[in-house]
């Protein structure tokens, strides 16, 4: 078939597909367009015609035109499906926990690397108080100390606007730390390792120091409620980072490139869940944690409850019976 005949015969189909794509991409001026049901058929045809045009060496212009059409069609037809609310809910209710359980190796690794130094320093400082200033600069420690001084304890009465500000700050800062921990995984896990250890040591040292100087009640009652969400979220971010690292270090039978993409998908779900946890933690930390509640035991209770609920969630949610 000669080119002109080819164009004449199929030109209508091209125009139709073109129009439909234009409409799909938001051009509202076009009135008549092919019904949606005809589009896959049209698209397949145009693909076929592109292959023919290339095979028959029609002019470069025509080939390029068809190529553009196919490219645009490809983009529309293979576009992302609309976000699925049910899928998201299912992820929250069970999928995330299941994912965390499935990746128990990296989760445990990250948890050990994070909680290990944290607890170790917490203990060590009770025995050797000076150890705190080895890890953290003394002026920082002093600043922390004044922040939680009972003299300054108006946290409970602080206005709503301060709560809001602190909430935003926690979202901005803590989630970023989580993201960094995750992204560091691409450096063969070194970044993740560093951030986990660093945060473990830092948090452990601060808590240990404050407790040691006798600010225990203030600090623990402040930290209790959001600690579960926040600390576990850091560990899970680390686990996500280590997923990337495993793809690089031990890709198995896949190429590193493919392994990265595949593990990256899992890692993304982990970090996504962790980000939501950070967010939830920020809500609690901003609005609930600063409240002064008498007796303090109530807040401890809430904290312990959160830990139990979260651990229960990660251990059990989404398990099918007998599985």
């Amino acid at each position, binding site marked *: 078939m000669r080119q002109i005949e080819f164009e004449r015969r199929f030109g209508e189909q091209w125009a139709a597909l073109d129009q439909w794509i234009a409409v799909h991409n938001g051009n509202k001026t076009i009135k008549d367009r092919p019904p949606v049901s005809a589009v896959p058929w049209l698209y397949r045809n145009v693909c076929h015609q592109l292959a023919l045009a290339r095979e028959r060496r029609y002019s470069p212009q025509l080939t390029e035109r068809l190529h553009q059409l196919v490219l645009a069609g490809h983009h529309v037809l293979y576009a992302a499906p609309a976000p699925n609310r049910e899928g998201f809910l*299912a992820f929250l*209710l*069970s999928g995330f926990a299941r994912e965390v359980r499935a990746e128990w190796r990296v989760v445990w690794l990250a948890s050990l690397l994070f909680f290990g130094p944290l607890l170790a320093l917490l203990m060590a400082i009770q025995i050797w108080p000076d150890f705190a200033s080895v890890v953290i600069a003394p002026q920082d420690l002093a600043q922390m100390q004044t922040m939680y001084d009972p003299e300054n304890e108006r946290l409970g009465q602080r*206005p*709503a606007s301060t*709560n809001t500000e602190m909430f935003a700050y926690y979202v901005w800062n803590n989630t970023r730390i989580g993201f960094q921990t995750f992204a560091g995984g691409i450096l063969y896990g070194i970044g993740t390792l560093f951030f986990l250890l660093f945060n473990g040591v830092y948090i452990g040292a601060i808590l240990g120091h404050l407790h040691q100087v006798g600010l225990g009640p203030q600090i623990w009652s402040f930290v209790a409620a959001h600690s579960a969400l926040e600390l576990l979220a850091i560990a899970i971010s680390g686990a996500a980072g280590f997923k990337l690292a495993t793809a690089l270090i031990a890709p198995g039978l896949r190429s590193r490139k493919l392994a990265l993409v595949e593990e990256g998908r899992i890692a993304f779900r982990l970090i996504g869940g962790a980000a939501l946890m950070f967010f939830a933690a920020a809500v609690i930390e901003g*609005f609930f944690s600063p409240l002064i509640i008498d007796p303090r035991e109530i807040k401890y209770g809430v904290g312990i409850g959160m830990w139990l609920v979260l651990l229960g969630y990660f251990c059990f*949610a*989404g398990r099918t019976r007998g599985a």
Partner: protein
Amino acid sequence: MELEKIALVLRSRQGWEAVDLGFRMAMRWARPLWSAWFAVFLPVAGALTLAFYEQPIIAAVLVWWLKPLYDRYLLFVLSRAVFGATPTLRDTLGASRQILASGLIWSLLTRFIDFSRSFNLPVVALEGQRGPPARARRKLLGLRAGGFAIGLTIVCIHFEWVVMYGLHGLAMLFETDVQWGATVADDTRPWWDTFERWGLIDTLFYFVAISLIEPFYVAGGFALYLNRRVMLEAWDIELALKRLAARYAPTLAMLVAFSLTWHVAPALAQDAEAMPETESAGSMRLDASESDRDKPPCAADDECADAPYEAVDTPIRREAHRILSEPDFGSEREVTRWKRIESDAEETNDNDLQTSAFIDAVAELFRVIAYLAIAAIVVALLYALLRYWLGVAPTIVTKPPPAMLFGLAIDPQSLPEDVPAAARAMLATGQHREAISLLYRGALSNLVHTRRMRISKGATEGDVLRLAKPMLGEAPMSYLTILIGIWTQIAYAARMPDTARIVELCDGYSSLMPSEANA
């Protein structure tokens, strides 16, 4: 060297795409490229560093100033490699005389003002043009590509800085008490005091940076230049037409191909060749190229080199402008720019009292929302856990149990108080089928309403058995199996069991009751 051997895909590319091709060229021929680079660069840089050991910034500035020198070696490697004749290091160094012959001093002098250095380099170094012809040539080539060439230079300068600061950053990561060299971060001297602050380490980092970036920069410029010529001269078509002619009349075409050999790549050896003739794309050239064809190749022909360059001719320029206004050479693009939006801050300042009240209200709102969110988080977590313990499958929302199933009314109200008794009564009046139906309905009602079994619309008898199995004890299960078995026979085989069995079923019905099941 022949156009046929070109190792690139020839097509006219939009500006940045050509630069990208250049970067790919640098990657592809990395080995010869960098070995040539280091062979030239290291001695120079090393010598300068030693010479100005006390003033490392002077070494850096001199190395920077000498960039055109190394660039020429890079360009030499590239221009050969592109035509399938990648030179060895020995070849490259051996060709130094040619490489440095044309216009090096000029380049060194003008490098301060030349913002499209890498793009202009081929004109000077490969085409061997200087003075007014070179200027005219640059102007013609650069009419559309010039912007990209300048952009490339500016971006590459920044890339060098990125590398330098990146290296500083790396150094800082490992920096403990040992201070090696002055880093930018811990220096308290004012920033304009660069001369003082610049340490040996900065020079070193600078050397690394240009070693990494410069080959890409030169390749990018070269690719822009090549792309320009593809656009202006349609090399790709030339190549294909030559092949066509060769097929049709081999001997004739050979001659043609030979006499029109492309002049750039053999370049430094033959750059004096016929360069000005065919490159100008000017209307004046018709006669010249025709006469070319009749002449033997003029590799060492001085006559060609001395030919006056006519690019400044007005018809040519007019021609060039016309060509360049073709859509092929760049298209008009709509550019959206950010415009300053008038802030309405004054408005908010107007009424402080109202505003602060408003802000407080917003904050309160945030607080309330946050508490609700906390509550929601807790509830959701508890819910997820409870769901597990209750063994409810996720994603199915609890619905009230159906009143009708398989067309049978099964809600408790529709059934008689004492199901077996009613069934027996029916049996007595000869309504066998109805009696079994009642028992079946009773059993289903029991399962669905008392034991909360979930049955979908499409469930068959087999499904009922399967679903009931985990809920029922052994005795009720076997009863249910028999009941459903008999029911199936009645329903689908129209086969009625004898009365005695039905009575048996009525008697056994109580085994279905929960009290029995729990025992």
